[in-house]
């Protein structure tokens, strides 16, 4: 899967939880879920569960720790799908 496709899919996943519309519109590898998209920390669990469901993967605690930005999410998804 190419990076643009993955970012577009992540954008769809985070959309219901993102409170910063402008940051969501400009989502890229450097976007931070909490600081940029203003996703509530309790909703970050939903993002993780949605990612697990969409890609049929399990995000263990070690991976979950890092899942605070788009780049980390992409790396985790790519490594689990590999």
């Amino acid at each position, binding site marked *: 899967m190419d990076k643009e496709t993955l970012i577009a899919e992540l954008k769809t996943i985070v959309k219901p939880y993102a409170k910063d519309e402008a940051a969501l519109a400009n989502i890229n590898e450097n976007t931070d879920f909490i600081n940029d998209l203003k996703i509530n920390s*309790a909703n970050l669990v939903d993002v993780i569960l949605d990612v697990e469901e969409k890609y049929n993967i399990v995000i263990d605690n070690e991976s979950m720790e890092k899942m*605070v930005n788009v780049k980390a999410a992409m790396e985790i998804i790519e490594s689990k799908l590999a």
Partner: protein
Amino acid sequence: MIGNDIIDLRTAAVESNWRRPNYLSKIFTPKEQSLISDDQSVWWLWSAKEAVYKIINRATLQRRYAPLSITYHSPDSFLYQEREYFIKSELTNEFIHTIAVIHPDLFPQLEVCKDRSIPYDKDEHGLPMIANQPVSISHHGRYWAMVKQKTI
């Protein structure tokens, strides 16, 4: 070191569905899950973990989304890496506000400010300060709270 976390229970009810499958097990230990009976118990546990995380984050300057690493120890304290962090919570039907400190003797020295017009500075990491003292700010839904050292 101070951390605080405020949760608007109405906002939480709209934004979060903690009954979603696997939700609770991602953030709460089996012991913590056994304490959960309703919205208030979920968000009390969460506010305590968040308040303690703010202390750790400020001390280490590291981002870690690891709610399972901060665990319930007693109604007054949580553990992180075998160290005890002390908490005090204000629970109402509308909101939950939890303050965390590294030693319970610090509680009497603290005050809560709910006036969001209070001026404050930011340190080089963007963390809030007043008169060179770290303060902790939390906001959610209708609520905003700052916890700071009392001015003598």
